[in-house]
């Protein structure tokens, strides 16, 4: 480690210039990458007449008029999305915590099979079963019912949550668990009193990942709902008219629909990678 002290002056200058260049490059790349989101946000504040021009306008008088237009009629979609997202996430956590416990802290005999069964269901393409799913929903009178989406979103996120929560449980120090057992704590007290308080940040990030996937889901909603359970992605589609100017209107609607998850993701970005890798990456 003598390299640090033996660094000569011009070399340090060069490395400073290098790091400035690095920062500029990173910023340029990031802004270019972010541009479509920025353009969506800018267009959302335009009046429709300023949105569809050539060349595109960058200076204009911002207005909220398209937002006002977009939110009329949005309430039912928003309600359905909130219900489907929140209820399915709660169900996922209720089912995943005990399951993760039985696959990590107090493992069943074939815990590996269990883990891989759950992950394998993520690989089966749900699109392949959409026709029969429609028929099943029709016959059980669940078509266009919010409970159908809740049931399916729970199944969609459950494997991910189990893997993730298991990875958090594996980090609980075994001394704590042993101490609890010596005190005669039963399984329920072990989970509730020892494990849950320790992994609660992990549970929050698991919940956030589930919220992101449920909120953004379109395919099932599009196929299995019409009006009584249509969610925010469906609202977005309905905001594109068959004819006429629509770009500012669409941008406003897209921004409204996306903003909750964007903010959640920004807040949770540290735990995002762990969730997306199903707990594989710490």
């Amino acid at each position: 480690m003598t390299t640090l002290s033996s660094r000569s002056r011009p070399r340090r200058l060069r490395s400073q210039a290098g790091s400035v260049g690095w920062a500029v490059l990173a910023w340029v790349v990031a802004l270019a990458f972010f541009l479509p989101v920025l353009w969506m946000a800018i267009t959302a504040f335009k009046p429709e007449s300023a949105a569809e021009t050539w060349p595109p306008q960058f200076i204009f008088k911002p207005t909220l008029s398209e937002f006002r237009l977009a939110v009329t009629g949005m309430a039912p979609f928003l309600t359905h999305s909130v219900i489907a997202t929140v209820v399915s996430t709660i169900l996922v956590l209720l089912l995943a915590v005990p399951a993760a416990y039985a696959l990590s802290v107090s493992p069943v005999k074939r815990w590996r099979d269990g883990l891989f069964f759950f992950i394998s269901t993520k690989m089966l393409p749900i699109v392949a079963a959409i026709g029969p799913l429609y028929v099943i929903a029709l016959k059980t009178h669940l078509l266009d019912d919010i409970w159908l989406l809740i049931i399916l979103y729970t199944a969609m996120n459950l494997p991910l949550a189990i893997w993730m929560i298991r990875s958090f449980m594996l980090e609980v120090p075994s001394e704590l668990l042993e101490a609890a057992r010596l005190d005669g704590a039963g399984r329920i007290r072990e989970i509730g009193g020892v494990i849950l308080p320790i992994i609660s940040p992990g549970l929050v990030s698991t919940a956030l990942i589930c919220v992101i996937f449920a909120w953004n889901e379109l395919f099932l909603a599009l196929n299995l709902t019409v009006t009584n359970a249509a969610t925010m992605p469906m609202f977005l589609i309905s905001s594109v008219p068959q004819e006429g100017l629509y770009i500012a209107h669409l941008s406003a609607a897209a921004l409204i629909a996306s903003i909750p998850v964007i903010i959640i993701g920004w807040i949770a970005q540290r735990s995002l990678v762990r969730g997306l890798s199903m707990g594989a990456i710490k």
Partner: protein
Amino acid sequence: MIPSAVHLMREFRVTVLEDLAVPPRAEVRPRGLSRRERWLRRLPLLPALIYVIVVTQIPFLVTLWYSFQSYFWNSPAPARFTGFSNYTTVFTNPAFRGALVRSVVMTATAVIVAMILGVAFALLLDRKFLGRGVVRTLIITPFLVMPAAAALVWAGPMLDPNFGLLNYLLAPFGVHHVAWLSTHALGSVIVVMIWEWTPFMTLIVLAGLQSQPPETLEAAKVDGAGALATFRELTLPHLRPYIELGILLGSIYLVNVFDQVRLMTNGGPGTSTTNLPFYLYQQVNNAFDIGGAAAAGVITVILTIVVATFALRLFARVFQFEEATG
């Protein structure tokens, strides 16, 4: 009897799982437990297990059932058994084959390019500089935008031939009012897929870079190794499991891409952007052909299982690595 998806899944799971050699944290080997104790251990697992089996496997069993029937949901005629005729139709149907090939092309291109960009972005973010947190936040945002919103914003404000931003930005390079979604439909959809999934790859590779022990890199520097050589000989091998994991998970999601196809090009022009998910969607929604879609679905599932066999093997190895080092 044709084995169900579950059975096929079970077949390969047994072979894969031997690789996952990390023992769970248990003081007592489950083997030596009493019958009562074994059931007590199983109990917390059962609700989730039963739930997932019921909700995810039943639709596939029903798919298998309908795949042998002629069933059009817009016709009053009841479903009737037609043996393998749906399968014959699917296999002789060029539309299905075309959709299959496009699915592979779209997924592979998007995953590979997103991974290359992801490695590049991760290398950029792995150094300290002013505003790194903000840059990181900007880069992950495309992944968070609702896919339906992203698809519509790309199709309209970004790619519109008459007032889209992209044509404006490319005008100095001699691009004039290109109707991207008509002339370069497949490329446009793939670009949007790449745009959405590069952040995901970036985050995974970045985690890999940051887990690299600084001493090794320092030692390489002392030994006089150049930046490129260090990257090739040390960093890349270290990143390998992370790259594999990113490619695997990315493929799982991207092979099911539907929103972008439906909202940007509606599968067209012609069938030039019709991938498998969109093809199946059309079979049910436009052709009302539950039986035909079911047969195509069964074939899709079987193909997925073949691919997933390799994927799960990889998964087992990656996780073994992770738990061993973490």
